[in-house]
């Protein structure tokens, strides 16, 4: 079948079962948009900024596990998309992003809206392509979806010059694909797996250190089962929230800079650390020379370059966590004795009782943590929670009762303010039966506020809950702790929009909340309204996220409270 380049794109998306894409048109990608207009295999959501299109595709992918797809034009369209690519890359999110490019004959001439897009995207994506001939497009598109979703997932960028989108060639879409140079390892080495089980059996204080890879691998059920019959306690990274389930007695909570006391102590005192799809981020490890000082370390990861990058590993296993755990299970059932770790579990429980995660609630104002707990009590598993970046993000990670993976959508590795709202739109498109909530801050929400228009126009009823502290709160917290309260450029209280009117002017609903009662009413009303909403919650301005391990500090030396 002969098709032009644009038709090939449509046809490939159809065959990849893409049902929704996000994007923003412009000169270089107009041929493709013309074909999008003519088809009805998938829906196209017009965002109001390219960054938001990428984040929306990203949120879609994180919530569903499917490949997110977005379109942007050349030049500024593409450069606007870069933050989105970088955000998805560091969090291993499968995406295919297609950008227009100036015609081949004009490449290299500093033409209108020309930028070296593959040059810019190279360090922000798993792989990229500049397609110079339409005959390569079927293969490139197939490879892009395959690369994005296999191995360690990640975004793939395809840059297509305008003349190639019009060029006619034979369309032969490969059914299956094998690549000479790209073959991820899925199965773990069985000798090594046996060794790990022996190491577990010989340990007295093992800990499961669960990362985002457990979510990507779809291994949560297995992880839960493994923890249950071995009786090994677990901690979750920010990216792994929900894997164990909030009510799981073996879960010590989140680990790291704002991890809870028991989780960080568990990591510090373990004699065997079993890293499952985690990558020893500096926000988790703190000072490396003190990290896991008493522990042998097992690391299971599908990305060989993650293993041994930060910390020396005693038992490396390259493979898909799901496969590795299934192979490990029968051997572990024989050799590992749950009772052996009873005193270890008791100790960690004691730690949790001494310093439980908490905050002191207050009659006079609303504590931000209360809002999150309240949303959790009210909606629990009925909602998927996205966040922006800052204190509100950490409180969400700490206080929302996540019961399953893919319920918490947050920019972990890059920490991208402005991620939450567009991501929550993608979430709603992926899982329409759930309530999509974005917990945001008064700083972050303004970084993609234009998406009110998208959400209104495309009937995406995201509920934005703004924990309004009149500060770039997380930066303010560092200034309080480490800069003698010199609040350089973090006080937002002198100039704030009227968020209620703002939402209404875009056709949505807005609520201003000063009391707990008002919050309950607003949330109820927002859910009922079925339109994009902003709930502007006036919260305690100077609340801090605790515990805190200062950057470069040791995990076991947490700041547990802040005294003036």
């Amino acid at each position, binding site marked *: 079948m002969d098709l032009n380049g644009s038709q090939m794109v449509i046809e490939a998306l159809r065959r990849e079962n893409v049902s929704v894409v996000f994007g923003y048109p412009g000169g270089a990608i107009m041929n493709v948009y013309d074909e999008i207009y003519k088809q009805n295999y998938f829906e196209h959501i017009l965002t109001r900024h390219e960054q938001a299109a990428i984040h929306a595709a990203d949120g879609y992918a994180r919530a569903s596990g499917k490949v997110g797809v977005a379109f942007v034009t050349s030049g500024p369209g593409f450069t606007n998309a870069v933050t989105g690519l970088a955000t998805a890359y560091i969090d291993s999110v499968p995406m295919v992003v297609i950008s227009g490019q100036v015609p081949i004959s004009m490449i290299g001439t500093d033409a209108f809206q020309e930028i070296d897009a593959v040059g810019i995207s190279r360090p922000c994506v*798993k792989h990229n392509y*500049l397609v110079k001939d339409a005959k390569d497009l079927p293969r490139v598109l197939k490879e892009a979806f395959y690369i994005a979703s296999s191995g360690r997932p990640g975004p793939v960028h395809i840059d297509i010059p305008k003349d190639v989108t019009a060029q006619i060639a034979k369309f032969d879409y490969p059914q299956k694909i094998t690549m000479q140079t790209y073959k991820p390892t899925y199965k773990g080495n069985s000798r090594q797996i046996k060794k790990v089980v022996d190491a577990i059996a010989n340990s007295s204080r093992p800990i499961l250190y669960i990362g985002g890879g457990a979510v990507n691998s779809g291994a949560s059920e297995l992880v839960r089962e493994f923890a249950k019959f071995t009786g090994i306690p677990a901690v979750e990274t920010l990216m792994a929230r929900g894997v164990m389930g909030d009510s799981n007695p073996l879960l010590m909570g989140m680990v790291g800079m704002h991890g809870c006391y028991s989780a960080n102590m568990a990591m510090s005192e373990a004699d065997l650390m079993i890293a499952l799809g985690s990558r020893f981020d500096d926000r988790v490890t703190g000072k490396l020379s003190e990290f896991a000082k008493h522990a042998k370390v097992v690391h299971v990861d599908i990305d060989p370059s993650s*293993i041994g990058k930060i910390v020396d590993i005693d038992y490396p296993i390259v493979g898909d966590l799901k496969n590795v755990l299934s192979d490990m299970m029968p051997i572990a059932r024989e050799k590992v004795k749950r009772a052996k770790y009873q005193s270890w579990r008791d100790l960690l429980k004691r730690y949790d009782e001494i310093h439980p995660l908490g905050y002191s609630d207050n009659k006079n104002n609303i504590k931000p943590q209360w809002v999150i707990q309240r949303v959790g009590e009210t909606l629990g598993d009925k909602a998927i929670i996205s966040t922006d970046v800052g204190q509100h993000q950490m409180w969400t990670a700490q206080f929302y009762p996540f019961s399953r993976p893919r319920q918490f959508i947050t920019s972990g590795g890059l920490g991208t303010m402005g991620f939450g709202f567009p991501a929550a739109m993608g979430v709603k498109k992926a899982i329409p039966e759930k309530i999509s909530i974005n917990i945001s801050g008064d700083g972050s929400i303004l970084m993609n506020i234009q998406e009110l228009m998208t959400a209104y126009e495309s009937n995406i009823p995201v509920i934005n809950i703004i924990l309004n502290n009149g500060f770039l709160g997380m930066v303010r917290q560092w200034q309080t702790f480490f800069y003698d309260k010199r609040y350089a450029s973090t006080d937002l209280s002198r100039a704030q929009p009227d968020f209620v009117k703002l939402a209404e002017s875009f056709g949505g609903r807005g609520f201003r909340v000063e009391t707990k009662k008002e919050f309950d009413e607003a949330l109820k009303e927002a859910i009922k309204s079925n339109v994009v909403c902003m709930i502007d919650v006036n919260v305690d301005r100077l609340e801090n996220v605790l515990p805190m391990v200062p950057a470069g500090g040791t995990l076991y030396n947490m700041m547990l409270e802040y005294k003036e």
Partner: protein
Amino acid sequence: MKEIRRVLSVIVTNEDGVLSRISGLFAGRGYNIDSLTVAPVPETNLSRLTIVTCGNERVLEQIVKQLHKLIPTYKVIESGEFVEKEMALVKIPLNEDFNGLDAMLKAYNGTIANSGENFIVIMVADNAKRIDNFLKTVKRYNPIQIVRSGSVAMDI
């Protein structure tokens, strides 16, 4: 940890942009490139890059893994024995006293590659260490210009 010199032979798909992926990887992650040679592998769709780099054990391990992670990378050969050769071209003015030059060329697999009205160009091929030595010695002829290649290596 100790800094170690290492020769890597990287086989990649011979396609647009593959060199920028590799040089970008080294630049972006702060790895060293001491020298770099690229050429197609005859009768295949592949290219061979010979990279001489240095770093401590952890860094070298990461370099190899990160190279593997690039989609067009087919193979990274790092261990085992290599025959390794570099080349140097040296332009020497004709008014120099060439006493001993012949013996030196012999010792370093060298020849006179070309000559002009008032200069000769000599060429030597040897391993990196010996090229270093040669270039030190050749100074006595007051060379006008020295051009040195990257390494090529073959595993044996």
